[in-house]
């Protein structure tokens, strides 16, 4: 047996050998089940394959694959090699994938054939010295195969990147990709807190809803595997069908669910979870869960404990609120709750002074789960810290502490909003709309509705030639991820203005329903 010391604390349980129960399932997906013994073997083989392919500890390995047991094995193999895994959405447009890769400068990209082919068209637009490997190739034991490399000198990681387990990308305020670096210790501190708080055990069957590039997946994978439970990967196409999700939960006796509220709301609309016996814990995060829907869900499925989790990707979960089994009817907002025990969370004003009970300020987080920083963006990293605290993060979210000690979320500082659980940069979205030749002016808004976070609307003043909505959607689809597809597109003859000549967003918002018609 090879030495597997000095690897991530996240892998301790996965790499341990010779324990009873090693034949229990660690991972399952629609058509495959992997035991702990098999997983250990695969992870070590992938690690060795990475070393043979010139990957070294500290390297960044981008992973752009659909969710599958093999993808999770690759993630764990990268960690076992002491490298950083960087999960990228398999549905990024080619242009966005290139932009992200140029920012990241990884040693290797592991994709499937479609990703490799899309990138092959313009190798000069890729970062230097990046090899491209595919998963799913025939012949090889692991299905991993290096299919090419871009010329140039490899980018050497700075010492600072050591110990980074994962980089999670979000789009920054200008729409440029922004990589959030989380160290093994960052992730482990959250995992330990959550596993302890929610008593995750080897009896747990966790359904993995979130895509692997979304921070919710860190709980699904690492909390479950560290306690030797089973992770059941719900693929994207099954997730679209409430009847199939119910069947999946029943067949696998799922006990833990963690998702954005939208996923639960869509199931509740069909009462797809009614009376399911196996679920013991329902966690949700990422957007505000509308209380009327939550009440209906809790009536339909009263047995599990419901917990509202809050936290930016930069800190992972930092507050939690256990929803009382019968939410009081006069409850107007769902608190985000109390600080997680491994972190300090407080509300401060511009000057950094802590606010009193009931006063709104910026939610600030300090402690071991706070990110190492933004990849390659030292200034942005410094800008989000509290003075003299390298382990702090000013979230840009506003809230206040209620008299009972629970934190109430009020809103974002900037125009960064969430729709269906995804971060949306309205300015970046507008910039793309405005780049379309048929568009004279464009404004993007989030119109509040019953759905969590509201719906995304675009108001467009077209040029003379009429432009098709389908064409706008295609244009957006080629440049931005799928969650930027607006729910509504409204045509305007002219953009309303305020008295000083600015676009009158407030007026557009207040008239949005009328302008967009009665639809939805």
């Amino acid at each position, binding site marked *: 047996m090879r030495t597997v010391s000095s690897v991530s604390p996240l892998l301790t349980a996965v790499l341990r050998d010779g324990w009873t129960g090693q034949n229990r399932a660690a991972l399952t997906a629609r058509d495959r089940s992997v035991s702990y013994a098999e997983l250990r073997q695969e992870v070590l083989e992938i690690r060795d394959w990475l070393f043979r392919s010139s990957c070294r500890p500290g390297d960044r390995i981008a992973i752009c694959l659909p969710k599958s047991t093999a993808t999770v094995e690759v993630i764990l193999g990268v960690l076992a090699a002491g490298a950083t895994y960087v999960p990228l959405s398999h549905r990024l447009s080619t242009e966005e994938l290139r932009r992200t890769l140029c920012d990241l400068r990884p040693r290797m990209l592991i994709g499937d054939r479609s990703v490799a082919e899309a990138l092959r068209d313009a190798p000069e637009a890729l970062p230097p010295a990046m090899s491209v490997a595919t998963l799913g190739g025939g012949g090889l034991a692991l299905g991993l195969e290096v299919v090419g490399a871009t010329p140039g000198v490899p980018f050497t990681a700075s010492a600072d990147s050591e110990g980074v387990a994962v980089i999670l990308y979000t789009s920054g305020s200008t729409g440029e990709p922004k990589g959030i670096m989380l160290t093994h210790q960052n992730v482990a501190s959250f995992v330990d807190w959550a596993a302890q708080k929610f008593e995750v055990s080897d009896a747990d069957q966790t359904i993995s809803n979130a895509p692997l590039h979304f921070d919710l997946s860190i709980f699904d994978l690492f909390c479950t595997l560290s306690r030797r439970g089973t992770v059941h990967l719900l693929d*994207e*196409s*099954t*997730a*679209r*069908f*409430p*009847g*199939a999700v*119910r*069947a999946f939960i029943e067949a696998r006796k799922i006990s833990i669910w963690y998702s954005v509220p939208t996923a639960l709301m*869509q199931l*509740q*609309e*069909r*009462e*797809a979870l009614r009376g399911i016996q196996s679920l013991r814990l329902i966690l949700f995060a990422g957007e505000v869960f509308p209380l009327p829907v939550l009440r*209906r869900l809790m009536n*339909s499925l009263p047995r599990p404990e419901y917990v509202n989790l809050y936290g930016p990707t930069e800190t992972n979960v930092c507050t939690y609120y256990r929803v009382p089994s019968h939410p009081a009817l006069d409850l107007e907002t769902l608190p985000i709750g109390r600080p997680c025990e491994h972190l300090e969370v407080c509300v401060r004003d511009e000057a950094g002074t802590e606010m009193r009970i009931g006063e709104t300020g910026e939610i600030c987080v300090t402690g071991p789960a706070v990110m190492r920083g933004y990849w390659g963006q030292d200034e942005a990293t410094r800008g989000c810290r509290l003075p003299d605290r390298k382990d702090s993060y000013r979230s840009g979210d506003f809230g206040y502490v209620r008299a009972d000690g629970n934190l109430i979320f009020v809103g974002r500082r900037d125009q960064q909003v969430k729709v269906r659980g995804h971060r949306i940069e309205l300015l970046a979205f507008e910039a793309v709309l405005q780049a379309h030749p048929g568009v004279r002016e464009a404004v993007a808004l989030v119109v509040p509705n019953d759905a969590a976070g509201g719906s995304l609307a675009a108001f467009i003043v077209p040029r003379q030639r009429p432009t098709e*909505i*389908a064409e706008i*959607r*295609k244009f957006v*689809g080629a440049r931005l991820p*799928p969650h930027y*597809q607006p*729910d509504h597109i409204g045509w305007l003859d002219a953009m309303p203005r305020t008295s000083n000549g600015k676009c009158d967003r407030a007026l557009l918002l207040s008239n949005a329903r009328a302008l967009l018609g009665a639809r939805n």
Partner: protein
Amino acid sequence: MRMADTTQMILTWLRETATHSIDVEITDETELIEQGVLDSLQVLSLVCFVEDRFGIALPVEEFVPENFKTAPVIAAMVERLCASPAPSATRTR
């Protein structure tokens, strides 16, 4: 209503609404899920459309990918639900 008409109506809806993300021509044989015609939002809108248009309520156990493979498969499900007596009203909205 004849099966063929129902299929036609679903095809028309798909062609009008689902073309933004893909460049395939949608026919009887198009694999709607595999070829990415029906993304998560499209599935929901399509269900809303057939429920409104045909006055049916889709029970959760029918809301599975097997019933949405192609336009004729969807039409067959719609016909079946139209023919069945008083659908178990599982929608809450």
